[in-house]
């Protein structure tokens, strides 16, 4: 890539910044961490200072929610300045062992969870899953995502999806076990070289499969493929878009009802970054008995859960209330029985927060697919 010859200022268009402060103003973590992303955009102009900036702990507080980028009136992506600084640290090797291991695992096993590639499809056990073959056309090609594949808490998303697809007679196939990480977290952790390689390898690999579209289960894969992989042949959608379609077409039927108050949490990578707000809500609303509530801060103003930006591997030094906890408290105040999300990271962070707050008895955090699996049949 040509990035080698670019200065920091050129690469991140620092001169385009008018120091308006919208980035920092919108940044959700400012309430608990010392991060001021605008200040970084300002200071990074001085090349001599970069080393010093890269050593500041707060560059690891960014959750890559992209609020700063969405709000910037001049088209900058302020968070990428932080990522650029992270990459200086990653290059020097002075990263947290957890980060180092996650990146190593992506390189060797194609996932950041330090799990062997060979077990990537263990979640399929006992299920009748159609597997894609290169060159053989399928309407919907599924990309499962490392977290959904390996994390026992969220494997249910993929499992329920398979059951529904089979029942609804959808033409689909999941990618075989050589599917590799989309690189979303590799990018945000600042491992530029590995991410470049991921883009090249995955583009080549995914283009071998012929499909009308590739359906992703995680918003992180969804947005990463759509924004960082310019040469992909198959259009990429998120599973909530497909579910919405199937419901509209009447291909799914409901069994029983879910007489619960559900509040939907917009994942940053699905909502703010990709503008998918209505589909997940329509899907939830279609379940009989459901009363859909709204957070005060929803849709474009949704509050980040702090699950992204590599935060799964870096613990914040802040002792202040985590945003996920704020979110769960808000849900409690609303009187929600269920907090629904459509992202594995959101489910993990929100559920964790719910447990910390001790609300397990009266509340539940669930992936949308989890609920659909319980209340639909084809």
């Amino acid at each position, binding site marked *: 890539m040509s990035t080698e010859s670019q200065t920091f200022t050129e690469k991140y268009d620092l001169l385009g910044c008018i120091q*308006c402060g*919208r980035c*920092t103003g*919108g*940044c959700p973590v400012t*309430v608990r961490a010392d991060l001021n992303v605008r*200040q970084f955009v300002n200071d990074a102009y001085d090349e001599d200072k970069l080393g010093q900036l890269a050593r500041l702990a707060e560059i690891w507080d960014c959750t890559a929610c992209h609020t700063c980028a969405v709000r910037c*009136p001049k088209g900058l992506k302020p968070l990428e300045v932080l990522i650029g600084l992270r990459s200086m640290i990653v290059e020097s090797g002075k990263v947290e062992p957890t980060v180092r291991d996650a990146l190593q695992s992506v390189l060797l096993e194609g996932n950041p969870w330090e799990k062997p590639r060979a077990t990537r499809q263990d979640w399929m056990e006992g299920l009748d899953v159609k597997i894609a073959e290169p060159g053989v056309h399928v309407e919907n090609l599924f990309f499962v995502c490392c977290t959904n594949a390996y994390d026992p808490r969220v494997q249910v998303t993929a499992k329920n999806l398979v059951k529904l697809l089979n029942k609804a007679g959808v033409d689909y196939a999941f990618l075989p076990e050589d599917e590799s990480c989309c690189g979303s977290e590799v990018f945000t952790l600042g491992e530029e070289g590995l991410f470049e390689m991921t883009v090249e390898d995955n583009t080549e690999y995914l283009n071998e499969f012929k499909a009308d579209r590739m359906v992703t289960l995680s918003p992180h894969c969804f947005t990463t493929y759509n924004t960082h992989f310019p040469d992909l042949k198959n259009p990429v959608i998120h599973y909530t878009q497909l579910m919405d379609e199937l419901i509209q077409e009447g291909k799914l039927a409901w069994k029983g009802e879910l007489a619960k108050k559900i509040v939907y949490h917009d994942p940053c990578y699905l909502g703010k970054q990709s503008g998918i707000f209505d589909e997940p809500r329509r899907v939830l609303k279609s379940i009989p008995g459901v009363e859909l509530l709204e957070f005060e801060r929803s849709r474009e*103003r949704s509050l980040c859960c702090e699950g992204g930006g590599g935060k799964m591997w870096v613990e914040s030094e802040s002792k202040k209330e985590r945003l996920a906890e704020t979110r769960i408290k808000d849900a409690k105040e609303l009187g929600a029985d269920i907090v629904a999300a459509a992202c594995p990271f959101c489910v993990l962070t929100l559920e964790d927060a719910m447990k910390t707050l001790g609300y397990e008895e009266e509340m539940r955090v669930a992936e949308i697919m989890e609920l659909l699996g319980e209340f639909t049949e084809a």
Partner: protein
Amino acid sequence: MTAKPKVGVYICHCGINIASTVDVETVEEYAQKLPNVKVARTYSYMCSEPGQVLIKEDIKEQGLNRIVVASCSPRMHEPTFRKAIQEAGLNPYFLEMANIREQCSWVHEDTGEATEKAKKLITASVAKVRLLEALESKEVDAEPAALVIGAGIAGIQAALDIADAGFKTYLVEKTPSVGGRMAQLDKTFPTLDCSACILTPKMVDCASHPNIELLSYSEVEEVGGYIGNFDVKVRKKARYVDFDKCTGCGDCASECRVADRFPSEFDQGMGKRSAIYLPFPQAVPAKYTIDPESCLYLSRGKCGKSPKCQEVCGAGAINFEQEDEFVEFKVGAIIVATGFDPFDASRKPEYGYDDYPNVITGMEMERLVSASGPTGGKVLISNGEEEIEPKEVAFIKCVGSRDESVGNEYCSRVCCMYTAKQAHLIREKLPDANIRIYYMDVRAFGKGYEEFYDRVRRENVRYIRGNPSEIFKRGNKLVVKAEDTLTSTPLEDEVDMVVLGVGLEPRADMRKMMDLLRLSQSPDRFFLEAHPKLRPVDTATDGVFLAGCCQGPKDIPDTVAQAKGAASSALIPLARGKVTIDAQVAEVNETTCRGCGFCVEICPYSAIEMVTVNQFGHEVEVARVNEALCKGCGSCSAACLSDSIQPKSFRDRQILPQIAALGAMK
């Protein structure tokens, strides 16, 4: 060709603009040896008086009959030199300009190469000038009347000026009343005159002026013809109220069965109107209008036993049978003054404009502080639970301006000042309120503006440097999430009310005007002027001028100044009574024209039509050019398969030798 060509070549130094890069002496020597060249000279500034005299004297003394001036782009000085040679007795079209500045000295560094290129360009011009034909420009009568479209302050001012000069003016306004956005404003910066007080007299004038025909609630449907002779067709929409009978008493509106049920456009939806309404008390004309969509009788065919307005109107003015009418007339010039749309704050969902009643726009604020507004001028606002007098007030500037995320890169030029004005108005009404203005820059460039900004700050209005990112609700407060960039402090500022300083956008319905009048847009999407500095009120269509915010955001002083400029430009053809039609237009060779009509399709100015002529006893279709519309662009010539249509001075036989001369030189 009559006389043998005797060419004079005049090479300009343009100070050092040309002479520092092009070796003008070498070029002069070279030019002297070109075929048919009698004289070649260089001079420091050919366009100056002595430069022109030089050419004129040579024409007389040396008997020159063709002139090449090698200097700058013809855009600026072609008319200068044409006039000069005409004064010396030559046909003005016996001139050719070789552009050795923009196309040579300014774009090259190497003197050797630039000099060679200058030689080539001059050789080519000499080759062409010998073949030029004498042309005569024509004059046609101009209709001594004008059309002004849009009756905001721009249109009103332009119409009054033209009418005062003694010419008939048709003023067409889309809505039921004249006045535009200015009528909605409370006071105006920086002097704080009451907007209605300074505007109403002008509104009344334009309705009563003997030379103005006001066509309110009307729209231009068709425009044909050309400068001096436009044919206009206007649709007068049915008001369902007899214009002559209505006395403006308003009994109908108060008795209307759906009285005060519909959002009033004038009050930005904060106040209510009936189905039959006057947009605002000072509306001109003071005639009521029935909105067919909200009227029970017109939308559902039934209003009680019989329409209430009809029952109560003592003048018998209600007429449900009324239909749209069309009027047609001729004008010599047209002024477009269609104004702007305020930026739609819903397009920045992070500010919660659609969700919170206490997040309002600057336009709504104007109505809220106005004594004639929905609250009678009291600053009262609902916080979602109850109506309150706000204690904590925040303004946000640059909403929808200077923002690529909504596609508006430009600055709207009025919001810095109107937020300052509104802060002042709130300070007057709520002395104890805490008022802050979130800003990125303060642009106070006009006369008295910086002084006004200074005054407002000293009235204890806090300016916080940072553009807020988000607004959400916590309890009964609005939280403005921002950063004070001067202290690098992220803020969650709790307030009772937020005013969004929305910018100005091109009107959503501007496309219709563009199609009617062949206007185009500049990159900011407002109407494009002919030249940003030197022809700011002209357009690419001769005889069509721009005034006010339709050309770009501006305040009232600039709007009025531009309106006066547009009026004076429009008056030129009207006062002269004639317009000159350029001679360099396309001409059809009717004997070779195949009648295919390709040129008709391609002409961007709709200047060609097909006509039937009798040739050797046969009726045949041939193309015919309307010389007043043709711009000599040459598109038709490129499209014509039989070379039958060609612009004069740019005929194949004239430009092919020019091109050949360029090619032959090595």
